[in-house]
């Protein structure tokens, strides 16, 4: 096996890196691939809670790097999906607990055992980001249609290009189609105009993302929510399948007003 190693990153915090990592890992595993999701955010780990595996941590990546255990002892197998694994990082340590060389070595080891290694990068452009990206071949940049997130995405794309990651593809997360329609939110085409990189997916703003993170269950596992479908589509595109982009208008409730508006106006 020679895994594709993909770093999921954004520059800005809170745009959905960890959610994207967890859901793409789950979706790829559901497609029969052997997948490991690695938490690259030393000191602020969250992939464990989003994936609902926080109670099963024994060893972390840092333990393996320090020789306390073997790398495969850090693997947490997800019991809900076959072939899905997670490697947690340490919560009580800082970013200097890992070096870029160590990450390259770890990724090299993981490559032999998996089809996909997805690395959840920390926010920022400093050492934590650089280390988490060091061992990756490809990158997924997550942004939301907001000026701050798009600006930071532009910065991160420049850094990823200088690190020779390829392809670098964009996920536009948390789109509110009714606001885009009104002209009160950047549309995906605006974001692509500005960032000029390839789009791999757009994910509508979806309350199910909140409820699934509350429960620690990946969205893609449960019912067919708009965001869950969007992440599944992205996973298929990562696999090289030609999946058309979803019509976001159809997914949009537009909140309470949208429901009332549609009840009255019929659209």
């Amino acid at each position, binding site marked *: 096996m020679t895994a594709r190693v993909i770093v999921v990153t954004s520059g800005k915090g809170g745009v959905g890196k960890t959610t994207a990592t967890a859901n793409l890992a789950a979706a790829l595993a559901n497609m029969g691939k052997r997948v490991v999701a690695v938490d690259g955010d030393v000191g602020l780990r969250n992939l464990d809670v989003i994936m609902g595996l926080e109670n099963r941590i024994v060893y972390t990546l840092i333990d393996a790097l320090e020789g306390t255990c073997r790398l495969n002892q850090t693997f947490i197998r997800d019991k809900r999906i076959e072939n899905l694994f997670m490697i947690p990082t340490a919560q009580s340590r800082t970013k200097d607990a890992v070096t870029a060389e160590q990450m390259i070595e770890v990724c090299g080891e993981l490559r032999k055992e998996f089809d996909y290694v997805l690395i959840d990068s920390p926010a920022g452009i400093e050492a934590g980001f650089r280390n988490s990206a060091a061992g990756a071949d490809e990158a997924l940049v997550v942004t939301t249609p907001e*000026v701050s997130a798009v600006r930071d995405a532009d*910065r991160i794309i420049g850094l990823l290009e200088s690190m020779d990651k390829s392809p670098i593809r964009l996920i536009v997360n948390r789109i509110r189609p009714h606001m885009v329609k*009104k002209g009160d939110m*950047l549309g995906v085409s*605006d974001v692509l105009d500005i960032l000029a990189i390839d789009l791999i997916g757009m994910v509508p703003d979806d309350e199910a993302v909140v409820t699934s993170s509350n429960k620690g269950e990946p969205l893609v596992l449960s019912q067919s929510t708009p965001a869950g479908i969007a992440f599944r589509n992205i996973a298929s595109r990562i696999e090289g399948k030609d999946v058309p982009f979803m019509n976001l208008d159809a997914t949009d409730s537009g909140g309470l007003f949208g429901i009332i508006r549609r009840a009255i106006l019929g659209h």
Partner: protein
Amino acid sequence: MGFFTNLFGIHNSGQIAKNRLQLVLLHDRSDISPEMLENLKKDIIAVIKNYVEIDEKRIELDLEREDSSVALVANIPVMTVRRQRRRGEQ
């Protein structure tokens, strides 16, 4: 409301966001390193030398930022202009 705001020349906030982003990124991206500027200078000199003789030591090249634009401003002293060759002549 859209009608009135458009009438008064006020764009929707999405368009405002796009315009602001384009501008801010123009500035962000124009923060180029001294090495890159030096390389740019070398390349420009190489091209210009095909046409005119210039004083390479006195070339000034810099990015000037104003509110709504970034300009690459070059001051290149010309010594002599090369004689124009007719087409076909080597």
